[in-house]
């Protein structure tokens, strides 16, 4: 493993730890609503913070199962552009891509796309560690683990990670301009409509990237 690869592997550590911390928060919140065993099973079979926190929040507020699934389906739309970005970068046949798709979350997809090496390997390694951290965190949360000040530290990892991913994937000047416009427009959108969330901001990013009509 060369020095660059070692540094890139080391950058996984704060990301995986932050995912684990949010797993603890999820486990603590979910066990009181759906019970400890379903809380852990949900992390094992869903592996999506956005979907799982929404599921628990909606059930706690008395929403029906169909309403919960509708929200889960809407939140899952965020995987479509990430998958489309990953597809040309993934090696192997249909079965290999289907297996690796399990590990697709915002962070792992970003690390795979930005990696200078094999996107397939990065997705697999980052995804496997993130999955283990998410499930282990959930178990610890269900058991009542105390995080102390780790939550605020974990929260700062994600904005910094996405800034890094935007910078590393902006390879030409037009990419930089589009990234700046998308970031600023997303902040503006969230200021006027906080409910827009990730999906609204992804739509903003997509709008920035629409090519002009061919002449």
């Amino acid at each position: 493993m060369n020095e660059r690869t070692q540094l890139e592997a080391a950058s996984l550590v704060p990301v995986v730890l932050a995912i684990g911390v949010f797993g603890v928060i999820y486990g603590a919140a979910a066990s009181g609503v759906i019970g400890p065993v379903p809380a852990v099973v949900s992390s094992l079979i869903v592996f999506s913070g956005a979907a799982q926190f929404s599921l628990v929040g909606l059930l706690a507020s008395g929403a029906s199962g169909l309403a919960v699934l509708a929200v889960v389906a809407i939140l899952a739309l965020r995987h479509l552009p990430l998958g489309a970005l990953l597809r040309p970068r993934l090696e192997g046949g249909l079965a290999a891509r289907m297996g690796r798709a399990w590990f697709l979350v915002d962070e792992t997809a970003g690390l795979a796309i930005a990696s200078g090496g094999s996107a397939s390997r990065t997705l697999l390694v980052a995804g496997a560690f993130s999955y283990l951290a998410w499930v282990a965190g959930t178990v610890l949360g269900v058991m009542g683990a105390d995080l102390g000040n780790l939550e605020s530290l974990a929260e700062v990892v994600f904005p910094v990670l996405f800034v890094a991913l935007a910078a590393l994937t902006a390879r030409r000047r037009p990419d930089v301009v589009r990234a700046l416009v998308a970031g600023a427009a997303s902040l503006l959108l969230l200021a006027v409509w906080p409910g827009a969330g990730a999906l609204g901001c992804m739509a903003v990013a997509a709008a920035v990237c629409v090519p002009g009509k061919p002449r």
Partner: protein
Amino acid sequence: MNIWLLLVAAGAITYASRVATTAVLPAPEGRLGVMIERLPAPLFAALAAVALTDSAAGIDDWPVLAAVVGALAAVRTRSMFLILAAGLVSHALVGWLVGP
């Protein structure tokens, strides 16, 4: 709805969304293909905005802003490790300066 059925359905929906464009649907071509090619940097910039406003501290929290500025300052290194380190060190430093 039974909780187990709900969890299995949520898992199936989420996995279907992951596998759809990664493995099953044809690769985008034409204008959609060009759009997807341009998407990574703007998409992650948009997600940075979401993560920034999602944090409990909020966008007007000095240590969080310092983390983003620190990360941006290290962008020219083009190293994920150094950008993350710069962001986290800036966060710790400004957090220590402004106090709890």
